[in-house]
């Protein structure tokens, strides 16, 4: 999806490393990504690929030991290296977060109305009464029935799905331009997940919020994302519009992930799931080589000698970092479309 207007969020060459007792761990290496207004971008990858660290680094939420380099511009304002006081003004107002487990993000001894209201009192300097009234509106916006009563509930009185809706209400209270949702439905059941994804889509449609959704679930990506970024071992390995990515994955890791997921219509008696041998590496430093080479069926000398750049691989806005991109990768999704 190409938009004429400047991106709301512009990430350039973002790298994050952590010093540890046993040496440096490189978590994110040279990630670049644009988020247009009203766009939903899905970031997908397995545990340890750096997707959450990338998300946290955007608003300076990482511990102070993290070394962050590169550039993150939110509506033109540089966030990497910004002063804490400047970041405090941005957080919640311009960029907001929701996380996987709503119960650990909510204060158990305050009503949800007070918690949503607090955001408005701090950022918008609203009175307590006005903040409460606005909290009821926000709860309605995220699809909580009888919001006027629910506003006085404590978190433990709500179901998991309701709590996540409260988190979303809190996150969008000040009308942020960017909402970062880090595994927002992973802790929820599928019937509840469908409702939460619907709320995120509604917010984008009604308020024009840009959403960066981070998940390991390809079904969630297929359901909600406009564009997809695939991460592996700290690097972006492929980026494409959602249809193109699922129909024509070019990086071998993306293709592997797609055919490793059980698909409707497949049974163990007739089909085998594709396995990706080996493990995600933990890297002390980012080598000048393809980090997927050790697990890749197509790897050769070139892959171990030089890191492949993110290059155009055909299609619109489709890039992959692979020396030997798949020409035809028959995934289950593709076969089903035939």
């Amino acid at each position, binding site marked *: 999806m190409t938009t004429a207007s400047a991106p709301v969020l512009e990430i350039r060459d973002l790298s994050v490393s952590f010093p540890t007792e046993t040496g440096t761990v490189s978590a994110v290496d040279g990630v670049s990504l644009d988020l247009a207004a009203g766009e939903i971008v899905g970031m997908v990858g397995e*545990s340890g690929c750096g997707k959450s660290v990338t998300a946290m680094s955007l608003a300076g939420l990482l511990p102070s030991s993290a070394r962050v380099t590169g550039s993150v511009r939110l509506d033109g304002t540089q966030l990497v290296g910004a002063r804490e006081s400047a970041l405090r003004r941005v957080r919640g107002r311009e960029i907001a977060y929701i996380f996987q487990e709503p119960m650990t993000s909510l204060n158990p001894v305050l009503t949800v109305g007070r918690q949503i209201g607090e955001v408005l009192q701090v950022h918008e300097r609203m009175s307590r009464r006005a903040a409460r009234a606005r909290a009821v509106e926000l709860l309605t916006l995220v699809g909580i029935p009888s919001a006027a009563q629910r506003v006085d509930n404590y978190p433990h009185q709500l179901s998991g799905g309701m709590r996540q809706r409260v988190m979303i209400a809190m996150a969008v209270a000040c009308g942020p331009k960017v909402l970062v949702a880090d595994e927002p439905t992973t802790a929820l059941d599928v019937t509840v997940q469908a*409702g939460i994804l619907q709320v995120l889509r509604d917010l984008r449609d009604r308020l024009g919020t840009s959403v960066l959704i981070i998940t390991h679930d390809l079904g969630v990506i*297929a359901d909600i994302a406009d564009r997809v970024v695939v991460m592996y071992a700290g690097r972006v390995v492929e980026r494409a519009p959602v249809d193109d990515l*699922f129909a024509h994955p070019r990086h071998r890791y993306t293709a592997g992930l797609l055919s490793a997921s*059980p698909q409707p219509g*497949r049974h163990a008696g007739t089909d085998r799931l594709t396995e*990706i041998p080996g493990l995600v590496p933990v890297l002390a430093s980012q080598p000048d080589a393809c980090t997927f080479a050790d697990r890749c069926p197509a790897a050769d000398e070139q892959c171990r000698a030089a890191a492949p750049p993110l290059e155009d691989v055909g299609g619109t806005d489709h890039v992959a970092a692979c020396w030997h991109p798949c020409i035809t990768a028959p995934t289950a999704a593709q076969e089903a479309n035939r």
Partner: protein
Amino acid sequence: MTPHPNALEIADLVMHFGPVRAVDGVSLTIPRGRVTALVGESGSGKSTVGRCVVRLVEPTAGTVRIAGTDVTHLSRRRLRPHRGAVSIVFQDPAASLDPRMLVGEIVAEPLRLAGKRISRRDRDARVAPQLERVGLRAEVARRYPHELSGGQRQRVSIARALISEPMLLIADEPTSALDVSVQASVLNLLADLQRDIGFACLFITHDLSAVEYLADDIAVMYLGQLVETGSRERIFARPAHPYTQALLSAAPVADPVRQRHRQPVLLGDDLPSALDPPSGCRFRTRCPLAFDRCATEVPAQTAIGDGMAACHLVRPDGTGPDVRTADPSEVLS
């Protein structure tokens, strides 16, 4: 004497934890060598059923028969000869493997518990082929669990579960804690082992895509009761119960083009409390098709092929209502 045809027979199983009615009248039969998936959301009681079968908890009422033997209330000592017949693999291998034991000791533990006194050399000889069978090198026996990856640890759990050559394996969300690519290898492994060894399996999961891959039969559980059972083909092609239909429609498929044309059935968020389940049909508070009778009358089980569906709207010929025709706005109001 011919062996009993059914690996597992559960009849009217009830498990109450104080006032919490976790399982409230579940009946389920698994023939030898078949894989039955028990599907449900968190709080449906599906794991409690598994724990009753391996007698980690003693059921409040009902019976559990393993190959025809009633084990529901056997004492620990009387139960011991039957322990080897049923094994369990848990969700989180990090929590279910003792961190202070070597992998070899962990895998051999069921033999020791069965009262077999075996020498260290015999033990190693028994453990090595088990590890190889689950795709691990024999040297892994001398490692500790923390030295292994999540997928390798789950393989150790499977090796431990299978060393006693069980007739029935309970797999309680065995892949939920694993990454997609690792999940695929564990699912493949379970499918291969099941086909080669031929044990029966109760596969407990919330993940419908894994179920379709592995199961012969499916049982859908909601708030302590089964709402629908049937063959995998029938459940996926013609789900009769509104809850089964909602579950199937809510799980997104990893294909954006198809996903765009699907309409998920949005259920209200609130799963009712198992402390005070709704009267009549337990699903009625979230069911888009609920009507007066659902509140007053517990739906009978209508037979569909080898299975059943418990809904007033399922007709005697086994055809069910279509939950997608209901107006979703009514559900959320």
